[in-house]
């Protein structure tokens, strides 16, 4: 595809089998080129400096230097390289720490290929991305109750599944203005709840195409 610019990717994960799986999955996308693999944070930083990839797909838990520290180093030393956190952890606290360390995106290791590709492309373009599978865990308040109404949750899920505002309006037989108003409420509630600028921005960009 001539109109799709190439994206270079560095994979950092201490599990060989995970690197292999990711490599096999990315092989199916010709516009993505894996330019290196690192089994720990230090190697990831060194390789990022040397090869200047567009995106580092970064595991959080690695020996010696972990993914959070490595992300901070890369953000400081190779500012043109973006970091996408790639982890098996779905806890909200880790999502916050990951984004606060300067990563542009956060995706789960078992994410479908389409989600992974979208995450890599968005992060490469300098935008933010949060795995839609994490969104339900973000809508639970500190009291354990869902902070969204049923209608808001329904709309959020459709948006997270990749629908546009117009698609959602059509699906639910409501006007686009009503969808937008719901989205404003959803974002306000999520921002108040997560209390983290980074997460709020990532969510906003993940939800509004």
């Amino acid at each position, binding site marked *: 595809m001539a109109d799709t610019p190439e994206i270079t990717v560095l994979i950092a994960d201490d599990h060989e*089998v995970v690197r292999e799986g990711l490599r096999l*999955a990315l092989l*199916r996308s010709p516009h993505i080129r894996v330019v290196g693999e690192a089994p720990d944070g230090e190697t990831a930083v060194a390789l990022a400096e040397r090869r200047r990839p567009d995106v580092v797909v970064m595991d959080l838990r690695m020996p010696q230097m972990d993914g959070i520290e490595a992300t901070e180093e890369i953000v400081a030393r190779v500012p043109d390289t973006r970091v996408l956190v790639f982890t098996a952890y779905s806890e909200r606290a880790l999502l916050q720490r990951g984004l606060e360390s300067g990563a542009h995106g956060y995706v789960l290791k078992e994410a479908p290929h389409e989600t992974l590709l979208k995450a890599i492309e968005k992060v490469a373009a300098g935008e933010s991305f949060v795995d839609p599978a994490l969104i339900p865990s973000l809508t639970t308040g500190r009291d354990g109750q869902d902070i969204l109404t049923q209608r808001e949750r329904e709309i959020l899920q459709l948006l997270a599944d990749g629908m546009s505002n117009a698609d959602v309006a059509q699906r639910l037989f409501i006007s686009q203005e009503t969808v937008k108003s719901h989205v404003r409420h959803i974002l306000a509630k999520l921002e108040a709840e997560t209390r983290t600028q980074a997460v709020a921005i990532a969510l906003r960009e993940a939800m509004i195409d």
Partner: protein
Amino acid sequence: MSDDHLLAQRLLAERAERRRIAEQLHDGPVQHVAALSQMLDAAVHAIEDGDVPAGKRVVARALAVARDAAEELRGIVAGLEPVSLHEVGLSAAVAELAERTAGRRGAALTLAIEEEGVGEGARSSLFQVIREALDQAVRRGPPEHVSISLAPTPSGGVELLVSDDAAPERRQAVIDGLAERAAELNGSFEASRDGRWTTIRLVLPPSAARL
């Protein structure tokens, strides 16, 4: 020690145990299953693109990874609290564990376990220490020889020695974890290297050995 203090220690030990199980699951099967989903995703895309040979290759690899995950899960489940431990004793449970881990990878096993007078709680704890030591030896190696001995001490406690000749220790976290377990049991712990042998030594005082 006061009852409150004992209770607090017990709770801490339980929390540490849960953390260890979480780490084992995270470090093994969770990673395998994640890789598995990436591989199957790649296979589906290859088949959709009409590249059936590539799809087949990736599926074959995914199958191997699925089997690894199943084996790891089975190992974790069996290690949690083997049925044989309380039915036929520590000696049999350790023999089975050593055979399943190090033995199957070709290591020669030397086992000498005297468990008379060792309490049920202590057996359970000693089993976990042995399991972790073996697990680590196999990951580093695998070793050619493994030797496990448990013997009474003159004062009425027990001494556990686990030695292997696998490549030198790399993960300090495992040694720290074993030391932590020993401290929970009120025991003394040391890890040492002598030539190509790595040995861990755990001594439980009489009070802990009879638990």
